[in-house]
């Protein structure tokens, strides 16, 4: 019990400290790295609370995907962050006021929170004892809501088809790979073995330039001209 409480305070303290560093660090790359640290600590807090699935998802999705995306954006876009920070002093009072108002509103809402009388009985949640929450979530998503899960899959498929239909333009200049042609290529088609006398020049041997690549038969009925050589 003691160790758990200690761990909680350590993780929570690091979480808050790194969150503060995210907004105050001068270098945006450092900000993103602190953000990753914050995510890891939040995941540890989830673990302590017994939500191991949420912890892993947080690491995989936020650290693995979102934070990396942030890093890419920060590194690839030329954003002048010191310029963005200009006027921080000037706007600080307004920002602080808005923050206080929001905090007060949150306090009022949470203070007056109460569930509708019938809500608890209508709510669906797997409450099986002795089942891990990962198993419970799996039960929910892949069994109870399998229909909706598959339907969301279809929605994403349609989105993908739509993006391709509306933007893909098949350029005649684009080079497509013809695997059969690559495999079917013989060394003799493009290579010529020469007997080279030592000391003789290229011109004397009659090799002015390399043998041109043979025109492959496959290319005749394929618009996307693909040259057999050079792999």
């Amino acid at each position, binding site marked *: 019990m003691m160790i758990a409480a200690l761990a909680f305070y350590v993780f929570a303290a690091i979480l808050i400290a790194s969150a503060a560093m995210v907004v105050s660090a001068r270098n945006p790359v450092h900000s993103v790295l602190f953000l990753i640290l914050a995510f890891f600590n939040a995941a540890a807090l989830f673990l302590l609370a017994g939500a191991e699935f949420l912890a892993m998802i947080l690491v995989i999705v936020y650290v693995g995907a979102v934070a990396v995306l942030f890093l890419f954006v920060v590194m690839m876009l030329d954003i002048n962050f010191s310029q963005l920070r200009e006027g921080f002093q000037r706007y600080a009072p307004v920002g602080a006021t808005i923050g206080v108002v929001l905090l007060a509103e949150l306090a009022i809402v949470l203070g007056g929170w109460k*569930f*509708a009388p*019938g*809500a*608890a*009985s*209508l*709510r*669906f*949640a*797997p*409450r*099986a004892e002795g*089942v891990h929450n990962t*198993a*419970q979530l799996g*039960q*929910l998503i892949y*069994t*109870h*809501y*399998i*229909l*909706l899960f*598959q*339907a*969301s899959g*279809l*929605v994403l*498929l*349609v*989105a993908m*088809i*739509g993006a*391709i*239909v*509306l933007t893909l333009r098949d350029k005649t200049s684009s080079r497509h790979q013809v695997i059969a042609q690559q495999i079917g290529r013989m060394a003799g088609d493009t290579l010529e073995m020469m007997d080279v006398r030592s000391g003789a020049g290229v011109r004397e041997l009659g090799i002015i330039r390399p043998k041109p690549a043979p025109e492959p038969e496959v290319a005749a009925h394929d618009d996307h001209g693909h040259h057999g050589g050079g792999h």
Partner: protein
Amino acid sequence: MGGAAMTWMSLNWTLALPEIVLSCCGMAILILGVVSRGNFFRLGCMLTVGAFLLTAMLVLSGANGVGYSGLFVTDAYSVFVKLLVLAAATLGVVMSLDYNEHENLRRFEFPVLMLFSTVGMMLMASATSLMTMYMGVELMSLSIYVLAAFARDELRSSEAGLKYFVLGSLASGLLLYGVSLIYGFTGSMDFALLAKALSDPASASPGLVVGIVFVLSGLALKVSAVPFHMWTPDVYEGAPTPVTAFMASAPKVAAMALLVRLMASPFGHLLAQWQQLIVLMSIASMLLGSLAAIGQRNFKRLMAYSSIGHMGYALIGLAAGTQAGVRGVLIYLVTYVFMNIGTFALIIAMRRRGRAVEGITDLAGLGRTDPAMALGLAVFMFSMAGIPPFSGFWGKYFIFTAAVQQGMWALAVIGVLTSVIGAFYYIRIIKVMYFDAPDEAFDVRPASLSFVAGVGGLFTTLFFLYPAPVVAAAEAAAKVLFG
């Protein structure tokens, strides 16, 4: 509701077999299209039509019941809606065959997107949870955004796609916000549990009502009811015509059916809370649909306003809030789909020297240059105006009687009056076709368009001879929601 103890078989997953099979067919067609050399568009369309027919058979032969732990239902109502959606989508794909060849849009993704959109609509028809509803709406809309912008090199089409996307996202936002409010104030997203929790109208808190209004707004944007109609004329005009035809039929059916199920089943006891809203939307849609269409010169724009008006009529049935009203809505949607698809097939056939024309004046003298096409258009226009014996009249008849039964005389009278105003612009087209000096003849009509227009025309003309199957099916479907 022990989640952990639940096994795979207790999900009743075979209930969604039609959707599963259709999605698998869609993915197979997609892969075939990617690996095939040469042009796969025509074959892809044929395969899609085949997949639709197979799915329709599965829908017809499937069992009824609730599956996926209450997220999905198959009942007479969902079967009715799914069959109608599949019919509309099939005719929509057939219609695109020739148009896309002409307009250089022959890419195999086109039928695949229509197919996935249809999967979304089928989900909407079967939704018994706010989450399933949202996923269905999103799957349907996302495909249609792409389809609207399919002619990507054309400014109007890109504009239509972008406009629809932005406003559609707004609708999704409204929908989700409403869903979150409803969930927050009731504690459930399941239709059955919601109905139980709200069985006492007094238990409806203001927050819940606000949530319902948001959901209503989001869905109203999908059916383009006033005041959420602004996108319709521009998008209908700019999108490729087969896409417009598809957008004006199948998604309208699915969204309207979803709206009706949502209002009638979980929120059925709160009729007093949402009835005024539906009445207002209905009246505004009917008025705008009939008045704003008068000045239109472009046939596709005219059809946009016409569809707004038609949705207004369909909403009357919902406003009545009775089984007869819902039956009226379903019958109205059937008649609407067939006359709408038929009209659009003939709009696609308006082509002079290889170029598509869309102006109403381009129809001048069609009665002499192409009597068959003129006759078809005349049938559809008479039907849309609600002139007996065509199917459009019967749709309106069932709707108006349901309203009158509930004592909503004002609504019925406004409906009849706006029908009369609407008749003016429908009949003006007939006048242009038969009494104006002939223009140059249109190009030869491809067989696929004649087929679609023929199906629509035959249904519209002969509906009054044997309406019993449709009426009986609609009756059974409506009973599910009120039984």
